């Protein structure tokens, strides 16, 4: 991988305009992704009966997207926050809280899907606004504010569920005592004709929409401005508070969407769901090439980052690599990605 990064560096150094710079950076990320993909082709286990590659099948390829749809959504929201120079540690807990709430509304209270989804998104928005107001209005450091919300959201998840996993029959008063909510199965079953699950679709559409928003809308430009130089942004008339608050609110809404997927995937509302997911989301954003200092990067980078981690995980998993080696490999890859970033800044 280092040899690739050096070659990439020569391309990018003369880039002065931010567009050319971004493109070069993106190419480097794509290079890394391609490399991982090739690794997957080379090191694929083969089907014992047919001898076919297990990696290069539609099933495996779509599984990769499916498995990473929650991380993808978290990373999507996280990108907005990181672009402003902030961080959101609460997304993993929010995922757990919303997954529990969604299951509780459907199974415990017997709500319809529409009402339950709406309530969950509103709850996510509310938590996000708490983050946003603490940071934007009261000037708390993002790390501290979202750390507090991270702890509290996990507490809320356990409080509403009574500390147990919400599933049919878990409590005698639950409206649903048997079976599985239909929406859970729908979310995780391949759509006929499309060939991928609604969960995957939700992730891909979110990334696409936010790509357009970040790249072409005035809100997107404000995110970069605030992250690049907050004081300059303020002086040029940008409402910094509002921009930050919106970024955190949106980020948490994406975490809420991830929570809906999490509940559907495991068909239960687990208050422990999403534990430490925020770290994977941050890793994906950083590996993609969005810098933690803010103002540089974008949604395309994040998609590349998510796919890179997802592919690495899948390749390690398909080969049944043992846990110690997996963790070492992941650590190395994060370091490699960050080194590439640092070179770009020189």
């Amino acid at each position: 991988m280092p040899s690739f990064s050096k070659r990439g560096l020569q391309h990018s150094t003369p880039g002065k305009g931010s567009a050319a710079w971004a493109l070069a950076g993106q190419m480097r990320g794509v290079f890394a992704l391609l490399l991982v993909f090739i690794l997957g082709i080379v090191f694929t286990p083969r089907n014992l009966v047919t001898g076919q590659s297990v990696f290069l099948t539609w099933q495996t390829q779509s599984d990769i997207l499916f498995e990473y749809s929650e991380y993808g959504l978290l990373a999507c929201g996280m990108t907005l926050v990181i672009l402003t120079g902030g961080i959101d540690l609460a997304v993993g807990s929010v995922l757990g809280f919303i997954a529990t709430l969604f299951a509780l509304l459907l199974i415990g209270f017997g709500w319809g899907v529409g009402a339950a989804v709406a309530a969950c998104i509103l709850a996510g928005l509310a938590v996000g606004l708490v983050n946003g107001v603490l940071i934007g209005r009261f000037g708390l450091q993002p790390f501290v504010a979202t750390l507090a919300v991270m702890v509290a959201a996990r507490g809320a998840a356990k409080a509403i569920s009574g500390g147990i996993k919400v599933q049919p029959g878990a409590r005698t008063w639950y409206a649903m005592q048997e079976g599985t909510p239909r929406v859970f199965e729908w979310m995780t079953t391949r759509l006929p004709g499309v060939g991928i699950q609604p969960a995957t679709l939700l992730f891909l559409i979110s990334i696409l929409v936010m790509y357009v928003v970040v790249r072409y809308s005035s809100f997107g430009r404000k995110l970069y401005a605030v992250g690049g130089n907050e004081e300059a942004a303020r002086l040029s008339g940008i409402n910094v508070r509002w921009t930050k608050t919106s970024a955190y609110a949106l980020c948490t809404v994406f975490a809420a969407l991830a929570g809906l997927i999490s509940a559907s995937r495991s068909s239960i509302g687990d208050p422990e769901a999403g534990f430490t997911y925020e770290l994977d989301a941050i890793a994906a954003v950083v590996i993609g090439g969005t810098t933690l200092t803010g103002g540089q990067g974008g949604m395309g980078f994040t998609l590349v980052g998510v796919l890179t981690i997802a592919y690495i995980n899948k390749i390690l998993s398909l080969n049944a690599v043992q846990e110690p080696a997996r963790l070492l490999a992941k650590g190395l890859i994060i370091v490699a990605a960050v080194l590439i970033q640092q070179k770009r800044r020189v």
Partner: protein
Amino acid sequence: MKRELLFGLFIAGLTAIAAGCARSPSAPTASGGDARVWNIGFSQCTLSEPWRVQMNADVKAAAERHRDRINVIFQDAQDDTPTQQAQIKQFVEQGVDLIIISPKESRPFVQPINDAVKKGVPVIVLDRDVPGANYTCFIGGDNKQIGLEAGKFIKQILNGKGNVVELAGLMTSTPAQDRHSGFVEGISGSAIKVIFNADCQWKEPKAQAEMRSALSRFENIDAVYGHNDPSAHGAYLAAKQEGKGRENTIKFVGIDGLPAEGQKYVRDGLLTATFVYPTCGPESIDTALKILDGEKVDKRIILPTRTITKETLK
């Protein structure tokens, strides 16, 4: 200044709330009748695992049956060793008649347990043994035995031959190591092969992802051995979501057998069997009563597992 003051008030309020929550529900004073009500201190290492929540519920239910004789003070150490050490000390200072502890670790509790026993407070240790401590009684399950039973069970339902996927618990922990080695022993001497093995760290989403990899690699999977019920359940869902109907042909076997979890999955036909890892809750209260009555009890009580299948649930 004003802000600091407000913040101070906020913290003070929080502390007050926390103190209110932490107070034990019933003050352990004697009831005034002629029969003495024994006070038992119960320290649980964490309540973030369903199995431990069940253990507390079992202890509570058993204590409720002997309400006229004992009063149990519950403490949750929230996964923190120093907190739990302090709880043991505090129980002794409070003057409880007996301590039950489900410790987070072994070594750090040798001293606190020995101190309590030296001061004349009997100690019952649950689930995780504390070697070197002079406790009154240890009650626990035997993970190796459970793994062995699970192995034998799979050997039996597959008629001694087939392909098994093993979705392990956190392999750096002794329960997972024992559930693995017991299983290997259980299937030994048969033509059963473990074709795929992954460390799923007791986590259902991880087990689901690993199972998906196993499914795309292997056409013929006959059984899945999950080190806990959520892992087996995750494997079932992965097979179901694959959409080839393999969830109906693969046998899924888990461990723990909690009423609302594993037993329910078996009843619903998702798992073929689960093996109960006893919570020791009812037994701990029974043993406590014996000790308080001055009876002699065994120093080690190992509880057997139970196999839960659709037939046994009827």
